[in-house]
């Protein structure tokens, strides 16, 4: 039987006896092993997972995946880093506990860019995570394994985290939905911290409605995370009605217009053409879309502001990874040598470089120029967005410069060219804590590409509704990558 269904459809199959939860879990594990062999999407597979109770709850009895930076009690949680390669937490993240109450069954911990610090899926300690649409391409990062496994049809959803675009970009590269709700709607307690002021929990699914169902179950105020807030009056799934007539959207001219890219590749041209065609689908539904101009200095600063803030926060957050409190002890004659040995051998090159940058911008003599100025520009960018959200319901933008890049030749290095702003603009959503969702909107070079919708804080229902309406105008809902053989899905 084919289980590539939406959550509602699977729930119906479970409740009318067409399939049992145990059958779904075993099918999911079987596919997870096949996908792991090809894409290296998992750090841990929970082969002893068993089916669960099925109730009226839409999620009950369903298998799912957890990104490996969520603490899971009694289950290896490495953050895809050698520094925590044997770490088994004695508590679970609040988001995971919230989901447990819905009788969902985790079948694996998904591989990721080490501690979330990367966008390629090439820094996991278990190897490069590959795109199920084309194994020569990257899955994107950092929620690479979650995106690859959902796209390959292992289960209907997986958890992700997003500090810069780590849910929303891999979702685009893998042709699925990636949603990070407003900052603090989901507790971060138990999520390995990367950059606390930017970190968001969220999910990867194959439909907007599934994303609403999953986040409804993950969210809630948590006494262990003082930045979480009471969202009990927000019911995402129940609020989806697809009514968008009269909504006003905008896109940013300085990032989207083709004239910014005189040497554009054919893939970029096709991607931007496709973006404008997608906007017409919304216009058919009575949505207006305006081109808005924003100070280019602010747009050009996004990437550096993100690097300064995220590297600085990461340097501080991960100073406890010494091999003394967490992780295997290093070798050395004294404690400093032991810690240096552990950190030098344990962290990937990318993380080490980010730490050095973070340390530099935090040095007393540099703080004002780099760290504090980055915080100031963050405010200018967020204020500008909030000003636009007074007039518009949401920002709509293409994700990245096209489909997933090839792994060979890719470098997760800080570089800057005229497409940097197109690659990095989703970081705006993290600066302001804005709700933001990526959905697939077509194919370029036979590979999926995505479009992103971002709205004002606490207005998640509006953002999801626009995405829901747009999704219904396109044929990509619940699509999967043709990775496995037909019989693997039967």
């Amino acid at each position, binding site marked *: 039987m084919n289980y590539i269904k939406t959550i509602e459809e699977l729930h119906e199959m479970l409740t009318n006896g067409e399939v049992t939860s145990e059958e779904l879990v075993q099918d999911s594990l079987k596919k997870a092993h096949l996908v792991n062999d090809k894409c290296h999407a998992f750090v841990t597979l929970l082969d002893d997972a068993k089916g669960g109770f099925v109730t009226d709850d839409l999620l009950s009895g369903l298998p799912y995946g957890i990104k490996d930076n969520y603490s899971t009690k009694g289950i290896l949680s490495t953050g895809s880093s050698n520094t925590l390669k044997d*770490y*088994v937490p*004695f508590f679970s993240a609040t988001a995971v506990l919230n989901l447990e109450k819905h009788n969902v069954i985790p079948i694996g911990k998904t591989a990721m860019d080490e501690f979330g610090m990367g966008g390629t899926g090439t820094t996991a300690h278990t190897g490069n995570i590959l795109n199920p649409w084309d194994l020569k391409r990257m899955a994107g990062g950092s929620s690479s394994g979650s995106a690859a496994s959902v796209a390959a049809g292992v289960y209907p959803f997986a958890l992700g985290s997003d500090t810069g675009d780590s849910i929303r970009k891999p979702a685009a590269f893998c042709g699925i939905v990636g949603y990070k709700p*407003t*900052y*603090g709607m989901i507790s971060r307690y138990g999520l390995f911290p990367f950059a606390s*002021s*930017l970190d968001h929990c969220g999910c990867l699914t194959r439909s907007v409605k599934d994303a609403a169902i999953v986040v409804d179950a993950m969210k809630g105020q948590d006494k262990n995370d*003082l*930045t979480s*807030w009471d969202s009990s009056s927000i019911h995402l799934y129940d609020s989806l009605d697809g009514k968008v007539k009269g909504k006003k959207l905008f896109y940013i001219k300085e990032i989207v217009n083709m004239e910014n890219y005189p040497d554009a590749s054919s893939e970029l041209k096709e991607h931007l053409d496709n973006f404008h065609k997608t906007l017409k689908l919304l216009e058919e539904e009575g949505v207006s879309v305006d081109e808005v101009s924003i100070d280019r*200095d*602010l747009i*050009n*600063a996004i990437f*550096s*502001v993100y*690097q*300064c803030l995220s590297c600085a926060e990461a*340097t501080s957050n991960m100073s406890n990874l*010494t091999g*003394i409190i967490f992780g295997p*002890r290093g070798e050395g*004659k*004294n*404690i*400093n040598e032991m*810690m*240096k040995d552990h*950190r*030098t051998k344990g*962290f990937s*090159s990318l993380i*080490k*470089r980010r*730490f*050095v*940058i973070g*340390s*530099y911008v935090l*040095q007393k003599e540099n703080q004002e*120029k780099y760290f*504090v*100025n*980055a*915080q*100031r*520009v*963050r*405010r*200018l960018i*967020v204020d500008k967005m909030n000003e636009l959200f007074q007039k518009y319901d949401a920002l709509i933008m293409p994700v990245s410069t096209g489909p997933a890049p090839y792994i060979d030749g890719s470098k997760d*290095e*800080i570089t*800057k060219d005229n497409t940097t702003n197109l690659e990095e603009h989703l970081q705006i959503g*993290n*600066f*302001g*804590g804005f709700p933001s969702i990526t959905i697939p909107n077509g194919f370029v070079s036979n590979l999926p590409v995505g479009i992103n919708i971002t709205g004002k*804080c606490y207005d998640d229902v509006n953002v999801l509704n626009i995405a829901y309406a747009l999704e219904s105008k396109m044929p990509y809902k619940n699509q999967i990558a043709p990775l496995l053989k037909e019989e693997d899905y039967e």
Partner: protein
Amino acid sequence: MHNFTKELVDDLADKLLIGLTDDENKLILNEFNIIDETMELITKIPNISEVTPMTHALDDQTYTPRADEKEESIKIEDILANCDFYEGREIKVPKVVGGE
């Protein structure tokens, strides 16, 4: 523009208790220059020094401390289950004071 040097990068890495290869050091120097270039532009934004730094994603929140109530703490056995070095119910750590 700042003058970034290999020695500066090595010194920062040393403070972080991280060892770098020469290639890693070179990459960081390139990355520093790119970030520095943009941050130079930021300093030219009019009245930038008068903008209040934004330290968090949401600055409209009010935080209420949780009630000061006694809670059950984590069991020592649970903690020791994930610990490589311990004696009885105590974790063994390397000597910190008193040299090597």
